[in-house]
C-alpha cells in the first residue's frame, strides 16, 4: 500500500485545488523557506485524523483554512483528500483505492469521508491501523521533531515500537 495522491483546497497556503501525485519509492518536496512544503506534511497528518491543532501549528483547527493574502480572499472551508493505493489488499476493503477526505469550515464544523461516503473519525483510524499507521502517526516526522526520539522518555520509545508491532 502507498500514498497515491494528495489534494488540497483552501488548506493553509493552497487556496485553489492543488493535487500532488506520488509514486512508490522516494519523493522529495523541495523549495525555499515559507513556500508551503510543511503545509503539505500538515495536510497529510490532518486528513488522516490529527486531533491537536498544535500538531499542525495552529491554535484552533480553523487555523488551517486559507486566511487570505494579497489579492486573494480568505476561503470559507478547507478540504484535503488522501488517496491510498490498495492493490495489495493491505486494507480489508473491496477497493483498489481508498480515498480519505476531511473538511472543516469557519465554525469548526467538519466531516470525514471515505470513498465519498460520510464516516466517523474512528472509521478512518480503524482503516489506518490495519496498515500499521497508528493513531500517533510515528511514520510522520514533522519539522523540528526528529530529535524528539532521543530526548523523549524510554517509555515513549516503547510506545513507538508497540504501535508498529
Amino acid at each position, binding site marked *: 500500500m502507498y500514498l497515491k495522491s494528495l489534494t488540497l483546497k483552501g488548506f493553509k497556503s493552497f487556496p485553489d485545488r492543488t493535487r500532488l501525485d506520488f509514486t512508490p519509492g522516494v*519523493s*522529495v518536496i523541495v*523549495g525555499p523557506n515559507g513556500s508551503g512544503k510543511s503545509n503539505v506534511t500538515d495536510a497529510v497528518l490532518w486528513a488522516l485524523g490529527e486531533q491537536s491543532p498544535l500538531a499542525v501549528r495552529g491554535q484552533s483547527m480553523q487555523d488551517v483554512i486559507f486566511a487570505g493574502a494579497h489579492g486573494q480572499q480568505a476561503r470559507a472551508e478547507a478540504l484535503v483528500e488522501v488517496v491510498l493505493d490498495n492493490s495489495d489488499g493491505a486494507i480489508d476493503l473491496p477497493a483498489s483505492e481508498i480515498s480519505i477526505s476531511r473538511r472543516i469550515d469557519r465554525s469548526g464544523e467538519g466531516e470525514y469521508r471515505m470513498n465519498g461516503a460520510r464516516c466517523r473519525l474512528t472509521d478512518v483510524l480503524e482503516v489506518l491501523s490495519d496498515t500499521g499507521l497508528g493513531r500517533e502517526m510515528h511514520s510522520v516526522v514533522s519539522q523540528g521533531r526528529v530529535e524528539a526520539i*532521543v*530526548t*523523549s522518555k524510554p517509555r515513549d520509545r516503547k510506545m513507538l515500537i*508497540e504501535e508498529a*508491532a
Partner: protein
Amino acid sequence: IRDAFDETFQAAARNFEEVVGQLFPGGRGRLRLIREDSGPRSVLGGDGGRSSAGDVDVPATDVDGVDQEAVGHDAEAAYGVEIEITPAGKATRRLSLLSGGEKSMTALAFLFAVFLARPCPFYILDEVEAALDDSNIDRFLSLLRRVSDRAQFVVVTHQRRTMEAADCLYGVSMAGNGVSKVISRRLPQEPPALSAA
C-alpha cells in the same frame, strides 16, 4: 499482543546495531528494554526520572529477552526502551551530551531500525537532515535509497543535496502572493554516486 511486541523489539534491536554501523562508521549502538523501578531506588536516582534526555540514570532493571511473565503481570512498573550509542572513538555516556547532528543520526537510526522490523506503508520526513553536515546527509541518503523498495518515502527539504535521492521531485514555490504552487518532475534514478569526496 505481548509476543508481537517482543518479536518487533528483538528485530528492531538487531536492526539498530546494523544501522548504527552504517550511520556511525566505526561506532556501536544497542537498544535495551528496561523496567523503570519505582520506590526508594528511583528517589535516590535524583532527577533521573524527571529529565527526559540522557536516560542512563533512570533506575532500571535490564530486561534481557522480555520476561513475558514480568511484563504481563508487573503492571506497576513502566517498561521503556533505552538507546545506547557510542560514536567511533568516543566513550558511551549520556545521550544528552551528544551533538545536534549525532542526536539526529541516533533518532534516524532508531526510526529505520523499527521500520525495518515492521514497515509502515509510507513515511513523511520533514527537514530531518537540518542538523546534519554533508557526510552525514550522504550516509542518511544512502541508507534511504537502500531501503526505498520496502516503503514509500516523502522527504521534505530546502536543501539541494537531498534532492539527489529523489525518484520523483516536487518543487514548491510562492510567487510573493501568499499562494503556494507545485511543479512535479520524475527523475531517472540511477544508483547515485552520492559522496564523491
